[in-house]
Structure formats: structure tokens, C-alpha cells
């Protein structure tokens, strides 16, 4: 028995060593891009899954055109299950073992904040395609080289847009905030408070609820008693859907504004198509925003019928597109050179828009409040909101 086992072990060892020898030969012709994002655990996992579809589609397209620097792009995908330790481990593994040229990810802002120092020290550019915390790109802004970039919404910016809309729309100047007790919800509450203060407005109610709560009638009763006619929800789509359902129970419908989480299908699936139309939210793109988005959405849905959130797929696609353009411009896979190339990119055609100098030394956000628009569900589709209030918004209103 022991002999048999050791023979097996020996042959396994032989196979692995021969594979290990074969690997470097292959790697010569490849450029690896890492993908480190939650695809299975938290409420935003579906943004990570859709982001992966976009990431893979961009790699496919680039390889179909001959790759970058004559080499094939290869995606190395890791799931961080929304856990910071796992995310850190993935990051080390991608950089040290897989020797990736750049990383796309993560989905959870908390995970990004847990490992930002690793790519920064090891000089590997990261493009965040989902996580929205303001601090992600800001933390190393004062360093000679900041390796963290973003192609996503930024919380502060989208909340600035929501606050500006709320102030234009309110008749009584009574604005309320409702958010869940997760890090996301509480950070949004804090940002909103600061932004509203810039406008000289104090919210009439600030309410909280648990992340898994399904009935917020008690909190909304207080919001109603305070006389709010505009309510800003600082939560993701599923929680905002429950807020809407509670509003329906009370037959109380103030204007409800929410973050880009509402673009996810849970909002419409949980609240139902009619009720879902009652919130206006910030969005970077929609599946009908332009013809490139339409084409990518069609292609991805054909391959992944269950794809949840197109928006992060588009952002994942554009993240890879920008990285590939930077590698081509740098004519190198060296992290330092890619970082410089990213800061000096010219025109790059993406899905969300045609980027023109997307990044610079001072600006690591490819998308800003000017690229965001307000959207709304209508007959089961996300459409742009273009009412009188949106038209009346000026740059001066977007205090942040």
C-alpha cells in the first residue's frame, strides 16, 4: 500500500515538475492581467461577476486584434469572497507568483483599502472597476507615483449629484437620509451630511436599518413625521427595494434618490417593475447608452443569460482597454512604465465613452460627475432621466 502511494506521489511530482518547466516557455508570449474581486459572497458579488464578463470580453477583443506588443493577454482570475484577508492573499499571489502586469478589482471598497499598499509598494498598477470609496484613489495621491486608478463611480461624486437634485426638487427644503448600517451605508450618510452642509442644508431625519432588514416602516414613519419630501437612500439596490416596499405599505411616496446600486436587477426584481420606477439613481452607463454598449450588452447576455449588472461589465471592459492601451504606449510590461503611460494616455475608445486623457498625475478617476447621469427604471429597462430639474442643474450645483 505504501509503495503504491509513493509511486503515485512520484508520478504526480513528475507531472507537476514537467508542467512547471513548461510554464515559463508559454509565459514569454503572454501578458497576464489579474482580476481580484468578490464573485460569490457579498451583496455586490454580482457586480464582480458582471465585471469579470466585461474583463474577459475586452481580453478576447484585444487578442482577436493580435494582442498587445505582439503578445496575448491572459486574465488570471481570483475570487476574494468579499473577505479582506483573502483579498490580500490574492493580491500577493497575483503579483508575486503570477507576475501580472496590472490588476483589475476589487468589488468591495473595504477590501481595496485593506491591500492598496501592496500594489503601491510592488509598483503594479491597479484599476478599480467597481469599488467606489472616495479614498481608494486618493490615499497615495501625494506619493511620487500613485498606482491606483479607477474606472467606476465615485461615491462622493454620485452623492453630490443626488444632493444637488434633491435640493432642486424639494419644495419644503426638508431632505432626509436613510441608509443601512454597513460600511457602505454609513460612509454614504457621512458624505451626504458633508455635501448637504456645503449647500447650507441640515437633513430633517437621518435613519438607519440593518443590512438584512425587510421592513423599514418604523424608520420611514419618522422621516414622514419630519415632513421630508425628498429622501436619499445611501444603500445598495436590494435594500433600496425594501425601502420602496415599506413606502408602499405606508402609502407614503416622497421623492426617493439612490446610488448606482439601484441599477442592479435586485431593485426591480424585489420591488417589482412598477414600484422600482419610483426611485431616481446615479449611473455611469446603461445598456442603451450608446451603440457600443448595446453591442457589448447583446454579446454578453447571449453568453451569460443571467448577467446581473451591465454597468460593471462596461467598467471592467474599459479598465482592461485602458490598461492594454497603456502597455502598448509604454512598450513594456514594467509596472512603473505602465503607471506613467496610464497618466499620459491620449484618446482611447471605451464602451462608456471615448476617453481623452482619462488620467493624469492629479486625476486618477476616468469617470467624473460630468459622465454620470440620473437614470430610472421604466417598463423594465433603465432609461436616462431628463426632466426639468435635471435640465436646471448647473456645474455650480454639484458641490462636493
Amino acid at each position: 500500500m505504501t509503495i503504491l502511494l509513493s509511486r503515485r506521489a512520484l508520478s504526480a511530482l513528475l507531472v507537476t515538475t514537467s508542467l512547471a518547466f513548461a510554464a515559463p516557455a508559454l509565459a514569454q508570449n503572454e501578458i497576464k492581467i489579474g482580476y481580484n474581486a468578490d464573485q460569490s459572497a457579498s451583496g455586490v458579488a454580482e457586480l464582480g461577476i458582471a465585471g469579470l464578463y466585461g474583463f474577459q470580453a475586452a481580453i478576447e477583443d484585444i487578442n482577436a486584434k493580435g494582442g498587445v506588443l505582439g503578445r496575448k493577454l491572459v486574465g488570471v482570475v481570483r475570487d476574494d469572497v468579499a473577505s479582506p484577508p483573502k483579498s490580500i492573499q490574492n493580491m500577493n499571489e497575483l503579483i508575486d507568483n503570477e507576475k501580472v502586469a496590472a490588476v483589475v478589482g476589487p468589488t468591495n471598497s473595504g477590501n481595496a483599502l485593506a491591500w492598496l499598499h501592496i500594489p503601491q509598494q510592488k509598483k503594479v498598477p491597479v484599476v478599480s472597476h467597481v469599488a467606489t470609496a472616495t479614498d481608494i484613489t486618493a490615499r497615495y495621491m501625494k506619493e511620487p507615483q500613485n498606482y491606483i486608478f479607477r474606472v467606476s463611480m465615485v461615491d462622493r461624486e454620485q452623492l453630490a449629484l443626488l444632493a444637488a437634485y434633491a435640493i432642486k426638487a424639494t419644495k419644503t427644503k426638508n431632505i432626509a437620509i436613510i441608509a443601512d448600517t454597513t460600511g457602505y451605508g454609513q460612509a454614504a450618510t457621512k458624505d451626504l451630511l458633508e455635501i448637504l452642509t456645503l449647500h447650507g442644508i441640515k437633513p430633517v431625519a437621518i435613519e438607519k436599518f440593518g443590512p438584512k432588514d425587510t421592513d423599514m416602516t418604523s424608520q420611514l414613519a419618522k422621516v414622514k413625521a419630519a415632513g421630508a419630501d425628498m429622501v436619499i437612500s445611501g444603500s445598495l439596490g436590494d435594500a433600496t427595494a425594501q425601502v420602496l416596499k415599506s413606502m408602499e405599505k405606508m402609502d407614503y411616496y416622497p421623492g426617493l434618490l439612490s446610488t448606482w446600486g439601484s441599477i442592479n436587477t435586485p431593485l426591480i426584481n424585489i420591488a417589482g417593475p412598477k414600484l422600482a420606477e419610483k426611485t431616481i439613481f446615479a449611473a455611469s452607463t446603461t445598456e442603451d447608452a450608446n451603440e457600443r454598449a448595446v453591442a457589448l450588452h447583446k454579446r454578453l447576455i447571449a453568453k451569460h443569460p443571467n448577467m446581473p449588472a451591465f454597468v460593471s461589465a462596461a467598467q471592467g471592459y474599459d479598465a482592461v482597454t485602458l490598461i492594454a492601451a497603456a502597455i502598448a504606449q509604454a512598450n513594456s510590461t514594467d509596472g512603473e512604465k505602465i503607471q506613467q503611460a496610464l497618466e499620459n494616455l491620449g484618446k482611447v475608445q471605451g464602451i462608456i465613452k471615448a476617453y481623452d486623457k482619462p488620467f493624469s498625475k492629479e486625476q486618477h478617476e476616468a469617470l467624473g460627475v460630468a459622465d454620470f447621469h440620473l437614470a430610472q427604471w421604466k417598463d423594465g429597462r433603465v432609461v436616462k432621466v431628463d426632466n426639468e430639474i435635471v435640465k436646471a442643474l448647473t456645474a455650480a450645483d454639484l458641490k462636493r
Partner: protein
Amino acid sequence: MTAILQALASGLALGAIYGLIALGFNITYATTKTFNFGQGAFLVPGSLVGVSLLLLAAGKPHWGNLAPSEMTLLSYALATLASVAVVGAIGILLYYCAIKPFVGAGGLNWVLSTIGFGIILQNAALAVWGPASIAVPSPLGNEVWRIAGAGIRPQEVLIAGVAISVMVGLDIVLRKTRFGKALRAVAFNPQAAAIVGINVEKIVIIAFVISSSLAGLAGMLIAPITTASVFIGLGVALKAFSAAIVGGLTSPRGCMLGGFLLGIIEALVGLWRAEMREITIFLLIIIVLVLRPGGLMGARSVEKI
């Protein structure tokens, strides 16, 4: 006034969910003095198996979303029965894997083994269904019923109705039937029960099957409110457990009472300060346990230590 009425309605609706799940703790505790700490994870296959059957019946893949037109009261009832059967069968597995090796041996090994079994179950479900939550329309429609200005959904009324029926059923079974007597005999003294001809293992397995089936039932019932997902049981199971402790683990009526109590406190405290809800509930639990260690309606147990 409307606000308080609404809080009461919402609290009762919430409490019914807690109570229903809490009943699952009662039946096994009454038999073996153990229960399934992973009960929350049993809601996962409970909701997902039934919903997947409905999806397959509608000619869709086993995940995705159900349209209201694909849900009738009959198909929902059949899917619920199937769910109850499947999760009940998982209960047998639970007994052999996580309870049998430890029951009667003293110590707390069964606590970890049932938690572990739940985690295995949840992650297996994650592999099959993925993380996205499945929206489930209520078979009774999605409109809101209004009573004096307070809104309540038909599904919530259904849950309360089912929970109370299950409670009454359990109460009768435990108190009036031969099976109930056997259950109590096993709980009181397994050796003596075996000597008088009770098949102890069979009774215990049945208790775990009933308990697991109840989780399956609860999973299907709450899915139209919470959505069906791998994470469905996380928060509610802890509250349900608290409800069982407050009301009395040994009494079905106590479990239900504890559930309603927790739900109403949660909703009423929310009217004052939402962040105080958990603090109030767990303070209350501590106070109840100090004054009545067996819970509000639990037997005053004398346990030899």
C-alpha cells in the same frame, strides 16, 4: 397613531417569521436537549429547492427570477411540499453526521458540528445556485392590505397563519399523542424509554426531520419577502433563536410568543431610535433569562450539573 399601528402590524409580520423558525428549535430540544445551530442554513435549500422547481416548471434554468405569472397558489403549495420533503431528508443526514456521534455524550461538540453542517450546506448551495438572490413573487399577489391606515402584505398574513397552525399542531402532538409522549419520554430519560420499548433513535430522527422540514417551510414562506438566496437565513435565524430562548425552548407556544414579542419590540423601538433595536432586544433576553431561566413559557427545568 397610524405609525404605531403600522409598527404593530410590521412587528407581528416579522415576529411570525421568527416564531416559525423558532419552532424548529423546539421539537429537537424537547427530544434530545440539542438543536440545530445551523438552522438558518436550512432555510437556504428550503427556499432555493422550491423556487428552482417553480423555475424549472416554467421552463427556465434553475436560477433566474420568477415572474408573477409563473406562480400560482397550487404550484407554490406543491413546490413548498417538495422543499419540505427535501429539507426533511437533509435532516436525516444532519442527524447521522452532526448529532448521533455526540448526543448524550455531554459537552458541546454538537454545537460546533451542527454549525459546521450548516456551513457545509450553505456553501454547497452556493456552488449550485451562486450568490445572486432570486426574487420570488408572492402567490397571493403583491398588493398591500390596509387596516386603519396600516399596511400589511397577504404573504405576511399567510406566514402568521401557517406559523400559528404549526404551533397548535406541535402543541397537540407533544401533549396529546402517543408519539408526543414518546418524544417526551426520550427527552426525560433515553435509557428508560428504550427499556419500555420506545425506539429512541427513530424518535430522535423524526424530531430532526420535523425540525428541518420546518426550516424548509419557513424558507419557502419568507422567500417572497426576503428573496431566495444563499444568505437568506443569516440574520433571521439568530433572531429566531433569541425568540426561542425568550419564549422558552421547551414550549411551542413560548417560541411563537417570543417571536411576536421580538418582532413587535423591534418595530416599536424602530419608531424611537432604529439603532437601539438590537440593544433593547438583547437586554430583554438577558433580563428574561435572569428572571426566568427557562424562558417566559418554558418549563422550569432542574438540570443536574
